[in-house]
Structure formats: structure tokens, C-alpha cells
């Protein structure tokens, strides 16, 4: 029919730059190794043998914010921790995403008090919220896959 059929025969696939870049970003998203509280234990559980997050190309947690794309805020953020969190976010290179894992990171959870930031979106922009206290590893994986869907829809014009 058209060009696609011809190129297919030659072992060539045509696509857009946008799709390729987004596809590669979703399949090698490196999270920042950054555990705060209880949710961090479930985050470890998601990476361990039973749930095996590496199926989605995400087993490589980087301890340095300079090498990571995704910040999983796993746990409650105290007022003392909030500036540190923001600095870590600022140190991450673009493009970067934030996943608020658990109720505390999403909205403060059960801790409506003087010490806890009522949702990490007061400090950094959040892409995906995962509910639960703490969320099950399946919940976290679902949140990450939702983020992947979001990343796949990103437009080249928004990269800037």
C-alpha cells in the first residue's frame, strides 16, 4: 500500500521521534533511591523477589539525584525534611517525574499536625498519587504504570 509496507519489507519501521523518546523513557526510568518511612519498606518489597519491579525496567535505583528521573516520595515528609526534598528535586535533571506514594505523601494521611507537610505537592509538583497506608506493592506498580502511560502521551512541544 503505502510507504509502511515497503519499509517493513526492508526491515525498517517508521515512527515519530516523540514515540521513540517517550518509549525509551518509560522503559528505563531510574527512580531515586529515597525512602522516608513505612512506604519505603513496601517500595523495597516491590523491588524484591515477589513483585520484581525490574520487569518494567525500574530495578536500578540511583542513590544520586543527578542520575535519576523519578522521585518516589515514599512516606511522610516532615517540616525538617521538606527543604531537603526540594533540593533533591532541584538536583534531578530534566525530564523528571514525582510519584507521591501513600496517603502521607499525597495529603498528610492520618498525621494532620504541626510536624508533617500536608501533601508533598506543597513542595514539589506531583504526577501520580498512590493511595494506601502503605500501598501494597501492586499499588505502587500500578502507580508507576499509570505514570508510564502519562509519559507516553507527552508532546515534543512540551519538552522545551
Amino acid at each position, binding site marked *: 500500500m503505502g510507504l509502511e509496507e515497503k519499509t517493513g519489507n526492508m526491515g525498517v519501521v517508521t515512527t515519530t521521534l516523540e514515540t521513540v523518546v517517550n518509549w525509551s523513557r518509560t522503559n528505563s526510568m531510574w527512580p531515586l533511591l529515597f525512602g522516608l518511612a513505612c512506604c519505603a519498606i513496601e517500595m523495597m518489597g516491590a523491588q524484591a523477589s515477589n513483585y520484581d519491579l525490574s520487569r518494567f525496567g525500574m530495578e536500578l535505583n540511583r542513590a544520586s539525584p543527578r542520575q535519576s528521573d523519578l522521585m518516589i516520595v515514599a512516606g511522610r515528609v516532615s517540616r525538617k525534611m521538606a*527543604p531537603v526534598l526540594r533540593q533533591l528535586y532541584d538536583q534531578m535533571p530534566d525530564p523528571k517525574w514525582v510519584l507521591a506514594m501513600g496517603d502521607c505523601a499525597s495529603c498528610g494521611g492520618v498525621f494532620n499536625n504541626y510536624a508533617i507537610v500536608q501533601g508533598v505537592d506543597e513542595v514539589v509538583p506531583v504526577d501520580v498519587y498512590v493511595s494506601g497506608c502503605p500501598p501494597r506493592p501492586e499499588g505502587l506498580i500500578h502507580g508507576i504504570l499509570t505514570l508510564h502511560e502519562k509519559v507516553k502521551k507527552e508532546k515534543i512541544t512540551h519538552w522545551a
Partner: protein
Amino acid sequence: MTNIREVTVDELRHLVSDRAMTGETMLLNMGPQHPSTHGVLRLLLELDGEIVVNCIPDIGFLHTGVEKNMEAKTYQKAEVMTDRLDYMNSVGNNLVYCLAVEKLVGLDVPVRAQVLRVILTELQRISSHLLWLGTSCLDLAAMSVFLYAMREREMILGVMEMVSGQRMMTTYIRPGGVWRDVPPEFVPAVQEIVNVMPGRIAEYESMLTQNMLFTERTQGIGVISAEDCARYGLSGPVIRGAGVAFDLRKARPYSGYEQYDFEVPTYDTGDIFGRYMVRMEEMRQSVRIVRQALSRLPAGPVLSDNRKFVPPPRSEIGVSMEALIHHFKLWTEGFNAPRESVFATTESPRGILGVFLEGDGGPKPYRVHYVTPSFVNLQSMPLLTRQHFVADVVGIIGSIDIVLGDADR
């Protein structure tokens, strides 16, 4: 929100040695975002080359205000907050809180509930030690142990979910007993864990105990003597690793621990390796306790029938006016506790966990204070790390098994 401020050496004069002032030694910041600080601990290290001269822990990055929040809730509702203190020992946190409440209002716990409490706290101890094993070996660059340990931990979390509906934050133990009876699948599931665990513990030991790479990093590192343990007021595997056979389950039994046959393991080196050996043996002893508890699990109620403090079962509410009134009163107002103060202690996987509870005659606690082992054990960091390499600091943090939620509260 305050921004991060640059701190000059001058401001730290009272914390560091004089050599730091002249620039002879270097100040290195470690954390709060560091993969091996087991949470959000910040350490300020004063280094002479690669040797640690001084180590200053900075805590509070996870201060949650749990104790203050609990004052605004009734006794039953405040218990939900206790899970989130030491999130690796949430069942134990519930237990110590419930022991304090029961002491305050004078509640009796049925035998079946006591045995269930013992089973669950011991399973929690195993799961906490497994996570300690996994993460602290990860710090020492032994990746595979983590994957093995998490595999067994999932089995225990499965049991927690079976009884309470939640994997980690169970709130299953309630004042006066436990929430509800265990499902029929509970006993076979625990039986399987008990059968599987001894072999698995032997598997971990076969990977580590004789392993040169492991022993080189652990033997003779972070040594503490029994006298220093007493001076610092440490507890848990840290002191047992230094040869002090002190365990509250033996010294001051609660929940019927005096009826179980188990040993308090000790090791006399006081280094990281000693703490490792103690924790491995503790897992075996916990398996032993669970096995005994399963064999003597009696039938009967799991919740006290004192209706002034314990809500009636749903089956009673439909047929008894009195039960309906009790249910309504307990879940709207809560129960009043006397104007007294109590202190209850348990042995958590990390050491002595105590709760101080003061009532003011009303339905809400006047003051709740948790005395937590992580906070106390963290004090030993300067002593343990002195004159060791920076690389060993990582192993030492892992070996005292701190949970920052427990230390900062």
C-alpha cells in the same frame, strides 16, 4: 518553609574537635538522603583522612508528632497512630500500647488472645530481623541476601494480611484482646512458616557466616563493651551481642511469655558480627516460641467481655439494647480512664520499647510517651564509629538496626 542554610564550622565548635577548626580534619555530611542510613538519619562525620574522628547524629527528619496527635484521639482511636512509629514492629507497638491501656483501666485479656498476641509479635520479630538482614547486607554489598530475606518476609506479611486485612499497619491487637478471631487458614499458614524458616535461616547463614567478604567487614568493627552498653542504656541485640543476656521477655514477662521455653542468645564479641549472630539465633528462638504457641492455642473468646471498655460483637447489637448503647457510647465518646499514669514495657526487635500513658479522667490520654530503643541505641553511634573507616560507618548503622520512625516519633 525554611531553606537549607549553609552551616559554618564555627557554629559547630561545641560538637567537633579543635583540629576541625584549623582545617586539619574534614567535616563530611552523610544523609539525610543516603541509601544506607536506613531512613532519614543525618550524620556529620569528622574525618582524619578516611578515619572517623567524631560522628554527630542529627535526627528529627521524620518527626511526625505522633504523641501529640494521640492526645487528641480517644484511647481506641489513638492506637492507629502507634503502628506508624516503628513501622517494622507495628504489632509490637500495638501490643505495648494495649498493655498500657489495659494496665490503666484494669482490663483482663483472654488466654486465646494472649497466645495470638505472642504468635503475631514473634512473627513480626522474624520479619523485622529479615528486613534488617536484607538491608544491612545490602549495605555490605551482598545483594542476594536481600532477595532471599524478602521472599520469607512476604510469607509473614501474608499472615498479617490474613488476620487483619493490612500487610503492615495491622492494628490487630486491641485493648482487651485482639480485633477478631483468626480465620481457619491461619494455623496452617503459620505452621508452614514455622516449618520453612529453620531451613531458610540456615541458608542465610551458609551465605554469610563463613563468607570472608562478610566477616572481614563485620568482625572487630563497631565494638562495644558490656559496660559501655550499660552506661549508654542500650538494649536489644546490641547488648546481647556484647554478652549481656538481658531480654524483657525473660526478665519481666508479659502476655504469658513465662510459659514458653526459649533461650536468650548472646555473643561475646560486641561487634557487628556478634549482633548478626544474635539476631540469627533470635529468629530461631522466635520460631520455637511460635511453634509452642501454636500447639497450645486454646479455643475461647479473643476479646474481653468487659463491655465498659470493649465494644460488643455485632451479633449482640441486634438483639440487646444494652449492647447497642455500649457500642454507641464506646465509638462516639470512648471510655473514661482514671487519672493515673502507667508505664508498660516490651521487648521489641530493637530493644526495650516502653510506653508511658497518663489519663486525666476523660476518654483521651493526657500524655502518651514512647520510650523507643532506636533513639537510645542511636546514642552509641559516636562511640561505635570512632577510629573506624568511613566505609564501616555504613555497616555500623546497619548493625544497630535503627528505624527512624522509632527514633524521631
